[in-house]
């Protein structure tokens, strides 16, 4: 990991502004994610999650995925976070800090997560460690919102329709589960 960081900061054909933005956002995101899983306050956890999700949206923009970024903001920060806050409110979780948020055996998470990170990091660096991404300013990227919509109404039409059924089923299921009777 450190090798990649080093080489990317020192790399010659690298768009400086883009890299700086990436690392700043990435740092904020990692910090936010750590706070999500360590904070003792449920509402704070939710708000840190907003930071992470917003950071991901920003990363999408850096990766030239504007449409996905907008969808991310709309769906996650707009809808999913509201659901979470309602969930916190309706389950009457302690709004203030709560020392009981972690399991007794939470410590086992650290070695497992570290093992995961080690494996993933090794694989990533092993396979794409030195690949440089296409610079957006130099090469026009063929991915446009139009091509996304063409994909949905073309090759991926059937999965798209299936997904709409999934959403319908989820909506009905959520209503059935949450109904009071």
């Amino acid at each position, binding site marked *: 990991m450190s090798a990649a960081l080093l080489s990317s900061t020192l790399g010659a054909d690298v768009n400086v502004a883009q890299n700086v933005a990436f690392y700043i956002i990435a740092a904020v995101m990692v910090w936010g994610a750590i706070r999500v899983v360590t904070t003792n306050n449920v509402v704070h956890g939710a708000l840190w999650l907003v930071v992470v999700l917003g950071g991901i949206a920003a990363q999408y923009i850096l990766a030239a995925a504007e449409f996905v970024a907008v969808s991310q903001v709309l769906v996650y920060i707009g809808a999913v976070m509201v659901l979470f806050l309602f969930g916190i409110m309706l389950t009457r979780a302690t709004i203030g800090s709560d020392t009981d948020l972690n399991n007794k055996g939470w410590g086992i998470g650290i*070695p497992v997560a570290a093992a995961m990170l080690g*494996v993933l990091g090794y694989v990533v660096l092993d396979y794409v460690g030195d690949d440089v991404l296409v610079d957006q300013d130099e090469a026009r990227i063929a991915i446009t919102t139009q091509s996304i919509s063409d994909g949905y109404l073309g090759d991926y039409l059937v999965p798209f329709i299936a997904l709409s059924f999934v959403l319908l089923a989820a909506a009905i299921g959520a209503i059935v589960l949450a109904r009071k009777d």
Partner: protein
Amino acid sequence: MLLGAETDGVVTAGWFLQNAWLIPVIPAIAFFGILFFGKKLPRGGSELGLISMVAAFTIAAGTAWQWVDRVHAYSPEYGEAEPVIRQWTWWQSGGTEFGIGQQIDGLSVTMLLLVAFISTLVLVYSTEYVRGDRRYTHFFASITLFSAGMLTMVIAPNMVQLILGWEIMGLCSFLLIGHWWEEQANSRAALKAFFTVRVGDMGLLVGTAMLLGIFGTLDILEINQLTAEGAADDSKNLLMWTAVALFIACIGKSGQFPLHTWLPDAMAGPTPVSSLLHSSTMVVAGVFLVARIYPVFYVGLDINVAGQQFNLIAVIGGITVLIAALLAFVQDDIKKVLAYSTVSQLGYMMMSLGIGAWTAAVFHIWTHAFFKCCLFLAAGSISHTASHHSFDMKKDMGGIWRKMPVTTGAWIASTAALCGVPYFSGFFSKDEIIDSARAYDYTVFYYVGIIGAFMTTAYMTRATYLTFFGTPRGAAAHFMGVAHDTSHEVHGHAADAVGAEHADDHLPEHADAHDAHGHDAHGHDDHHVSHSRPLPFAKTDSPWQIAGPILVLGILAVSAGYINMPVHKFYWFEHQTESAIGLPIAHEEEKSADGGEGAEAAAVEGEEAHGGDEAHSEAIYSVPAPPKFKWVNAAPGLILVALGFAISLGMSMAVFGRRKNLFAPFVGLTRRNRIARGGHTVLVKKYGLDSLYENIIVRAVAYPFAKAAYWFNQNVIDAVVNGAGRSGKLTGEWIYRNVDQRVVDGAVNASGLVASESGHALQPVQSGKVNQYGALLFGAAAVGAIVLILINA
């Protein structure tokens, strides 16, 4: 983005022709206007609907005028007028673009004019008819959207837009038929209409997909041209199934046998709805679809091929003509008589298309719209003014002609047109259909046609007699007696007083509406007067909003046919529309041949003109020219019509008027004679089709499955399970005694001990705690990944 290049043709198209797409757009905008602001407007949104329809009608009239000019400009030098097509990209998918726009040709101009005009009149009529209704605004919103849907459909340049309009209409018909949904029967009728039409709509989707498959395009003009040029001849079988699938949609929409059952039930809607949807516009959509892509049906179903006496369209149309006419005899509800009459006339149109008489069919759409709309509006006028919202001819009508001169006059004119009395509009179109059947050698359908004409006359005479003549009964007696010699306003109050007695005959909402109306009249007298004033020359007839449209339509029921009179060799209408057939007309042969034989020769030769050496050299198919009119050929039909009138009048007087005449012995025949009674019962039960659909098919599909599943469950599965259980038990006992106890026991005990011990050892892992499961899962995944990496490395 303009998809197709603007087809101006050789002659520049005028403004109206270029901008005819505005016609459906205006009512569509008005629909949203009514929906959002209707309740705040002084007249509940009806003014918006009316303004939009008048505007649409104005543009439609301008379009028609410029179209006539265009045909005139083309006709000597350039042959048939080219349609004015404009298309914009609506959406695209995988490289296929779907357009939305307009295709203006003779057929669409005819329909635009017709729909816009009749919608306007029906809206005027509705302002009085549904006044005070609790969903007044919604009514106007739906009816405006309905018109927009129909207009969208008729100007469609491609199948997608056609389906769009078609479905909008389907939705609106559901809303409008179920307008008074509080009554169980009405919402059932709405559902029935919706579902029955949906059954047919499957055919439309399948057929359209097949068209796309065959031709690779959905543009109607291209499809027509390609078919006419024989591009689909290689896949003729496929084309045949396409035509069948599309025709199933038409069967559903146009109420053809065997899916006609929804149409009479749809009379549950308010009368203006019946008049607009179920006489002159929506049900015509199916006929329109056949006419629109006629070459597909013509080639696909082998119409006019020599030696081909029957084809699907003609057979279905012919059956519909006869069975619907028979059903009309036993109806007591005046609207149901008209509904079956509509079904029967739609059968005529289909039959006409099925025998290759395209122009006659389209002309029949044109004339039928006026007189059938007029008949429905007249029925509504009677129920509104004379019979207290009752439509029962036997109970609440009779003898009202004295007090309702406008309604009666228009009714009789329209009836004459419907029966095909010479020089009324229906004569020209219907006779041409019958004559074509004769001339094109479809002998069976010729007889179907004249027998249908006979029956039409007979049932309409019965209905007319019951409604307007004889002694007043029920509510009509009150109307004729209590409100005698007074103005409408007095009648209005009297009607409210009498209303309670006939509460059973009212739709409850409507009764409310009527009361509300009464109160309103007391509160705002001038308002009331200004809106319910009758026509000056018919003081006791319905208010002007009702009588006016009826009068206009009554006049048109007589005169609408004068634009195309085969009697006088006057083919103006056909000349305007013939370019829309999509197939050339075999005129040349007709000119060379002479006299009565000429038409037949043209029919045969037109079919044999596959060489394609005529003016339209690219098309290898062509429709035969309309036959030459001869009174001799029309005579059998006319004689039958006269006979039908005489017999039916005599019967009606004998049965309902209790006069002693020639037919008196037949009175009560259905009670005395078993065969007659049986026939009557079959008709009253509508051939049992309804019970077939509801009891047999629905149950056949739903019940046997449930029953079979239950039976299977009870007998097979249980038996298997029981058997397995029993044999398992027996085997088990044997094994227990012989093997288990002696041999296995020791081994099992040993292994059981091992398993038990290891289980106990692992039991803490199965803690039931999700987090620990998660930890194990991810940990195992990480370990697995590491193993994979090590193997691959």
